[in-house]
């Protein structure tokens, strides 16, 4: 049986806003009968203010599909449609105190129903660009279609590359055989032979296109870098440089529903807090490695980036 949070159980056993809304002026029908889940979201939106006055759901689906639908309706009532559209599937999962990885598609269905309903309200036609297939990577909920398309579009030829491009296989690795099979089929289709690596390398793969020779670093940029590393920064200046670098990284993390916060700087040690999806992510080590690299480039010095909680920080630096 699934390890559902108390919040999921609460919304499943006692769903909120079940049924169609009376006098609804927006409907979003989404789902997949083959997957066993389908959701109709109905909204009553005030045409003068664009505020969602009421929301109701009808769901054909499992416990988490019903709970996600119920949570979504609670989350969007009273919101302006523009603000409602900002709700991500991760927000729905967070509202429910998390969903099992295999059930994340239920939260995706909620978000897509909302998009469909708002499009209906605005009289816009949404394109059906959803692809679906058998779940390959259960840790990150990546399906076969996504893996196959990514392999095809990028001419990938190793499990590591698939993981780098899609995250599939980056968790427990039980799906590596399935990924190898997809690689084998796709490579055969393009006239190549898949050769599995005997041992998965820990090195990050860097792809260099043949026609593109590595360009020499621009003189100005190199000089600027030198200047940064040569000049002695004050503590406040260092923190500002670190904050600026983190701001540059932030959009990438936020795209994956995560974020990072600077907690403290203690000489060469920089303590950060991973937020949202980054927290507890099985690729957190890679994320922290990337952040460390970025900060070293920005500061022009070696630093060690450590993810901690506020409590751990107190122990480490006595803050």
């Amino acid at each position, binding site marked *: 049986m699934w390890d559902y949070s108390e919040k999921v159980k609460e919304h*499943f056993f006692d769903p909120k806003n079940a049924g169609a809304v009376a006098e609804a002026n927006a409907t979003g029908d989404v789902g997949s009968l083959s997957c066993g889940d389908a959701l109709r979201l109905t909204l009553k939106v005030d045409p003068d203010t664009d505020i969602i006055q009421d929301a109701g759901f009808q769901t054909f689906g499992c416990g988490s599909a019903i709970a996600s639908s119920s949570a979504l309706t609670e989350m969007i009532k009273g919101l302006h449609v523009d603000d409602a559209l900002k709700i991500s599937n991760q927000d729905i999962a967070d509202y429910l105190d998390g969903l099992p990885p295999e059930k994340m598609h239920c939260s995706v269905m909620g978000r897509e129903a909302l998009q469909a309903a708002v499009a209906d309200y605005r009289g816009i036609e949404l394109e059906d660009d959803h692809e679906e297939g058998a779940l390959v990577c259960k840790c990150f909920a990546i399906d076969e279609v996504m893996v196959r398309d990514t392999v095809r579009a990028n001419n990938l030829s190793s499990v590591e590359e698939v993981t780098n491009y899609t995250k599939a296989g980056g968790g427990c690795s039980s799906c590596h055989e399935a990924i190898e099979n997809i690689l084998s089929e796709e490579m055969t289709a393009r006239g190549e032979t898949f050769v599995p690596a005997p041992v998965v390398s820990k090195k990050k793969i860097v792809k260099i296109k043949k026609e593109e020779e590595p360009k020499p670093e621009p003189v100005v940029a190199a000089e600027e870098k030198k200047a940064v590393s040569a000049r002695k920064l004050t503590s406040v200046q260092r923190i500002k440089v670190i904050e600026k670098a983190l701001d540059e990284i932030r959009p990438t993390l936020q795209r994956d529903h995560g974020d990072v916060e600077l907690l403290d700087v203690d000489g060469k040690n920089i303590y950060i807090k991973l937020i949202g999806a980054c927290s507890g992510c099985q690729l957190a080590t890679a994320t922290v490695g990337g952040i460390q690299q970025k900060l070293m480039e920005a500061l022009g010095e070696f630093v060690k980036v450590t993810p901690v909680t506020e409590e751990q920080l107190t122990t480490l630096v006595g803050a």
Partner: protein
Amino acid sequence: MNDIYMDNNATTMVDPAVVEEMLPFFTEQFGNPSSLHSFGNKVGFAVKKARKTVQTLLGAEHDSEIIFTSCGTESDSTAILSALRAQPDRKEIITTEVEHPAILNLCENLETQGYTVHYLKVDGKGRIDLNAYQKLLTENVAIVSVMWANNETGTIFPVEKMAEMAQEEGIMFHTDAVQAVGKLPINLKDSAIHMLSLSGHKLHAPKGIGVLYLKRGTRFRPLLRGGHQERGRRAGTENAAAIVGLGKAAQLAMENMANENTYVAGLRDRLQEGILKSVPNSFVTGDPENRLPNTANIAFEYIEGEAILLLMNKHGIAASSGSACTSGSLEPSHVMKAMGIPYTAAHGTVRFSLSRYNTEAEVDRVIEAIPPIVAKLRKLSPYWDGEGPVAEPEQAFAPVYA
């Protein structure tokens, strides 16, 4: 009020008499059955006795035809891989679309290694077309592997007849009889079945013990090579306590099969009738005329199985569902798909599988609990409108992703 267990096709409670029989083999009777000293001898004799009992349960001609394994899956894999290795010129396998994953996943893997697998289709009741089967029996086929009874619907396949048809063409025949052993009378001595798999935990023995029956004279290649245990056909020190437990469970199955089946089938029919009478838009899947006595797979249209199970669990009732969401896959049960059950019903199937430990009172409690559970979920369903399904449900609400 005690919880009600109706998921015996998943696993069964170990019979207390089986536990009692096993206990000494964890303490004073701990010897290695292969050892020559008296510690080993005592255990060796107990294993031999269990082998004899299993032989009798299966109606096998010789006790040496019984190979103890770790589980049904190991027995299945051993049977199929052995047949392929023993006949390297034969590159085809015949099975069905509705086999257990122990067979289907193995076959899928073998396809990547150059083997051709023929998957027999089933009709709406889960039955095989023997004419279609006959056409596939050629000299290229290394083995036919067909389950004796389906784990989801309980539908029984005519494996004895199919084995004879295979034998006429000189083809090995294996049956995954995990759900049938202990529930149906079996007489392998007079059959053309070469190999059969069984699993202890489906007949009130513990988990971790299985059997591969191998008819004398059948060409064989072991899966596990090593020591000389099981006449070199399955290396590894025997799980003596579990083997003894299986022996006891086999004895109990033989003694009680006829009476139990009448009793259990009676309970099952009462449950099925009670549910179908009180829940509209529900139906039995599989072949009601030719089914395991303990199994009723009921489809509740327009709702999803996992949601039903969660609410049943709240009422203290345990069963299974072939719904996609219980397994973590996104597809509904391959058995329901093979039978052509529409998605709006295939996702809402619940398998009730009973045993001798169930009672009439329990059945009545389930009959009482199910209608409000179904009604509650249908109230949430976009396919249900008040008292019945919406008109032409799949047309009226055939959602697409945004």
